[in-house]
């Protein structure tokens, strides 16, 4: 098992390098850069000379391979460089915001699992019954409703019927859990609905699949009760693919927050990313994109390792 894990970790390195390279190249094709925006917003008057000087100061005039080398060297020494917009270290910019996004992602995942597991199981057990159809409609709707719109509807409902709007300034959960939750529960619901839909669908189809396996038939033939068949035999095997999807979706959830954070004025990684894109803050964009990719790859790894633990056959 340990060898398998080490192997998988070693395989990550070329992937990460590829991710870094693609990210870097993609961003540098952008015409124009942060300097114009920084110096000319709100009608500032600057000369071309001033713009060139600032580009030099930020290292934007260096050849691309050198810029890439500087970034790679920084990554290895955990020095990610400074935001081109604020001049503050990227680690500081991201560090101040990632906590919030991760909290929303975790809460959304909890919401999702709590809804999805019973929903998916019931739908599978009563396959092709009205209940199944209802669940299918609910879950397909979950995939259809854009989470940012759902967020807007949540705010609309809170405002119209409860004359209340969620707090717009963030407080850490350790400082004031009530205020923290009253702010973050809404975006968690908005993104959690889609997440729940995805997981419920996966659970439904994998239980249906498992129920047709020979060993379930054998168990039934042996006279094991239906309840035991489902919960002891079917569920255990059906949950394996569900774990995969929970993991994969979790990594994507943080990316999906990009849009929803705008609606709730959350000062998270998603909003930071959109701001960075709008400002052409290369250093910040490349670091965030790389970070999201790392989260994805790591979650993938963890899922694979859990899989390996639960199902030794996959450890090839």
């Amino acid at each position, binding site marked *: 098992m340990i060898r398998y894990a080490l192997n998988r970790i070693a395989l990550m390195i070329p992937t990460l390098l*590829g991710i870094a390279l693609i990210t870097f190249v993609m961003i540098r094709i952008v015409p124009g850069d942060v300097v114009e925006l920084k110096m000319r917003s709100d009608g500032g008057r600057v000369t071309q000379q001033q713009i060139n000087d600032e580009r030099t100061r930020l290292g934007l005039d260096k050849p691309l391979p050198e810029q890439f080398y500087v970034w790679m060297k920084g990554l290895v020494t955990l020095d990610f460089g400074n935001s081109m917009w604020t001049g503050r270290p990227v680690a500081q910019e991201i560090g101040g915001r990632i906590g919030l996004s991760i909290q929303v992602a975790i809460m959304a995942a909890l919401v999702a699992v709590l809804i999805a597991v019973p929903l998916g199981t019931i739908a599978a057990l009563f396959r092709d019954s009205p209940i199944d159809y209802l669940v299918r409609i609910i879950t397909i709707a979950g995939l259809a409703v854009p989470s940012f719109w759902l967020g807007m*509807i949540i705010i609309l409902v809170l*405002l119209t019927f409860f004359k209340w709007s969620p707090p717009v300034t963030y407080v850490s959960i350790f400082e004031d859990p009530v205020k923290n939750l009253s702010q973050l529960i809404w975006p968690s619901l908005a993104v959690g609905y889609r997440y729940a839909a995805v997981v419920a669908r996966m659970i439904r189809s994998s239980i249906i699949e498992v129920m047709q396996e020979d060993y379930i038939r054998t168990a039934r033939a042996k006279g094991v009760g239906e309840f035991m068949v489902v919960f002891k035999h079917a569920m255990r095997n059906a949950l394996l693919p569900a774990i995969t999807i929970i993991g994969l979706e979790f990594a994507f959830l943080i990316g999906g927050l990009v849009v929803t954070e705008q609606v709730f004025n959350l000062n998270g990684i998603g909003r930071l990313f959109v701001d960075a894109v709008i400002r052409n803050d290369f250093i910040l964009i490349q670091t965030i994109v790389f970070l999201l990719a790392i989260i*994805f790859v790591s979650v993938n790894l963890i899922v694979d390792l859990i899989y390996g633990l639960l199902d030794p056959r996959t450890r090839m």
Partner: protein
Amino acid sequence: MAMLTRLLKNALLFCRLQPLGALGLLIIVVMASCAVLAEQVTFYNPEAVDFGAMLTGPSAEHPFGTDSFGRDIFTRIVYGARTALTIGFLSSMIGCHIGAAIGIASAYHGGWVDLVLQRFIDIILSFPIVVLALVVVAVMGKTMVLGIDLNLVFAIAIPIIPRSCRVIRAATLSIRTQPYVDAARAGGYSTVYILLRYIAPNVIAPFLVLLTAYIAQAILLEASLSFLGLGVTEPKPAWGLMLAGDSANFYNEAPWMILFPGLAISLSVFAFNLFGDSLRDWFDPKYRN
């Protein structure tokens, strides 16, 4: 004629076995007709400002109300269907085709080509969809052709490529290792023949499912990008754009401004997902008996 009756018979069977899928198809057909016949469905101009009718609620004249420029929201949703379906369909077509081509080539060729291509696909897959599309759209700017931003189409197509590639590669792989394909290869049949005779028919089902599913994804993605101000821009009618900027300022006065465009997005994505889902079950022999 025989083919037509067979098609009709199949369609009826599909409706009977997959009522939800048939419902999805119906919604799609209605929306597509609206998009094509927009000028006939509504007589307002989607870009015409009417200060006399600013922010009026739903009424006989304006069934979905008007926005802050007095533009008819129903009209903008109908024309918005044109935008959404065009971009959704084009992106999904481009993404799925390129993905399928790479997937088939990768699986069929095998060896180091497969290895390198799959590593590359792995890398692209590790970028969240929205993030990738956002960076691409910011990088490429705008190239307008016939009122459609081609770069937006590509930005949405790119995240689809690796996903389509994965599925089609797996499908191809399962066929390629069949003994009869080996026999055909040994028999000296050309690659093109094998691809058309054996691979294509077996890949077409998952491909169609993918295509439908990714139209839904593409519509969602277009809406998200337009919402962030990085997709379709004013005054063109697009659903995500109708939710962006100003409309969030009208929670109290004009909730219809956020209600209807969101419903339009949800309904269209819902329809494509429903149809795609049923299509998958339909093609899957396991679900068929």
